[in-house]
């Protein structure tokens, strides 16, 4: 049995709460502690002192990557509350923005996964091909991230006719890129050996934890707000909900990669079908009552519950992000697995990047901190290399 040699910087007297604490016996993870709150910014309380318009800018900043999903759920909630109808053109624009976000987010994940597995070229290429998507955002909205597109009753910016051919071309040019990633993941026997059967979640696990998004769909649970409670223009275009049955890390990666094709399909149809017309219902106020709004973020369902007493600011604003339900599934997914697989399992539910950074490994018997996140990433990369050598006897790319 190999003894773990502590490498890399570690601070035995460090007291800060790591996001993930893995307790290990030898090579096996036997327990997992999850500590959150590092990013807790008191947004629900802040929302109570913001106007309905300002709240949308606030919730956009819950997460940088799922940036538009929260405003999407937010305006859905307000439109539920006020029974507000949104002009047709605005619905299409909403879907375009949301799907562009899904593309950039999934590409970001592919890049990170590549990094954790030791495929640094995948990382560079995935993040490089995010750039044209961010360029489209900048052209339409003025910003690469935090687009401020959603408002109650419509959208804030229109898509100019003269931009549509360029957007269509840029999105279409992503198809061969996705083909490349699909080949890199799905046809690579090293990744098959590395990721199949790793970090499995069953249908029952998904139900027990209330897990969402690609995490759920990779275990054969076909939930997707875009299909279950269609918003924006999702019921006006053709697309498929992507699922897999195995529930392992490989399946989660495949679901995200195949969803990229669906997003491209949706954007192209929206650009073609989008009618001319108003983009804003010009809502002046919201009535008293309560509203629930949902959106399918790249990570799963975003859920907003709001309460109004007719005034210009919320009485209560409840936000539930998908990672809140997905991250706890790691207690089941990672226990019993090896530490070299820990990083990729934790990353498979696509939590905040910064959170996967803050990992600590403790020896179960001594409670001594023996490794940190950087060490775990290196172990993960080394395991891929070992498998590659076994299969091909070749050097890494």
């Amino acid at each position: 049995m190999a003894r773990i040699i502590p490498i890399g910087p570690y601070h035995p007297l460090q007291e800060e709460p790591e996001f993930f604490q893995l307790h290990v016996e030898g090579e096996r993870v036997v327990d997992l502690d999850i500590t959150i709150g590092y990013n807790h910014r008191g947004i629900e309380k802040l929302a109570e002192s913001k106007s309905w318009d300002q709240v949308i800018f606030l919730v956009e900043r819950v997460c940088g990557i799922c940036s538009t999903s929260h405003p999407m759920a937010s305006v859905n909630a307000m439109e539920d509350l006020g029974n507000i109808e949104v002009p047709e053109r605005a619905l299409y624009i909403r879907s375009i923005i949301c799907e562009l976000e899904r593309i950039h987010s999934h590409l970001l994940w592919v890049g990170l996964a590549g990094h954790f597995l030791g495929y640094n070229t995948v990382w560079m290429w995935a993040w490089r091909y995010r750039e044209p998507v961010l360029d489209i955002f900048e052209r339409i909205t003025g910003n690469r991230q935090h687009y401020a597109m959603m408002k109650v009753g419509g959208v804030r910016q229109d898509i100019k006719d003269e931009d549509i051919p360029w957007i269509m071309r840029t999105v279409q040019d992503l198809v061969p890129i996705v083909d490349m990633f699909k080949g890199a993941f799905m046809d690579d026997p090293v990744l098959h050996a590395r990721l199949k059967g790793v970090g499995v979640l069953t249908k029952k696990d998904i139900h027990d934890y209330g897990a969402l998004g690609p995490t759920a769909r990779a275990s054969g649970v076909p939930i997707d707000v875009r299909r279950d409670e269609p918003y924006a223009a999702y019921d006006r275009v053709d697309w498929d909900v992507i699922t897999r049955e195995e529930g392992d890390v490989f399946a989660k990666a495949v679901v995200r990669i195949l969803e990229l094709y669906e997003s491209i399909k949706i954007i192209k149809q929206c650009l073609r079908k989008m009618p001319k017309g108003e983009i804003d219902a010009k809502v002046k106020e919201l009535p008293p009552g309560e509203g629930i709004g949902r959106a399918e973020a790249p990570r799963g369902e975003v859920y907003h519950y709001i309460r109004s007493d007719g005034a210009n600011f919320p009485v209560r604003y409840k936000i539930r992000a998908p990672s809140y339900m997905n991250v706890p599934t790691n207690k089941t997914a990672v226990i019993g697995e090896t530490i070299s697989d820990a990083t990729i399992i934790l990353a498979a539910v696509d939590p905040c990047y910064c959170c996967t950074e803050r990992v600590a490994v403790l020896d179960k018997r001594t409670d001594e901190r023996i490794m940190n996140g950087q060490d775990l990433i290196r172990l993960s990369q080394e395991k891929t290399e070992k498998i590659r050598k076994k299969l091909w006897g070749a050097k890494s790319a």
Partner: protein
Amino acid sequence: MNLKLKALTKSPWVFHLSTGSCNNCDIEILDVLTPRFDVERFGILLVGSVRHADVLLVTGIVTRKASPRVKRLYEQAPKPCVVVAIGTCSLGQGIFKGSYNAPIPVDELIPVDIYIPGCPPKPEAIILGIVKLLNILKEKAKKK
């Protein structure tokens, strides 16, 4: 001190620290390392330990849980250490000002040398900020 500043302007090693943020600035910082922007050609290297850092890149509003970590990491960084605050949140907490979980912003906890505003600042803005910083340091080194 003189030699250190000189070395710093040749190949600054940067350590990235989020103090409680939406991660957008953090992603844009990483983006700066990707092929399109590629700051490694300037000699800028992201390091995994604050003990090797010349420059601290800080994002976020400083939540209560993050606060002791920020202080500790700043103390562990070898001096002189230059602190760069990136993004509106690290400038004055932005839209989160007044939150019960973030009593003070970054520059009331540790000294900040340069501020790069934006939500998030574009990679070009981050690079411009760092280049300006390196020029300031070069001037300082020359004067000594």
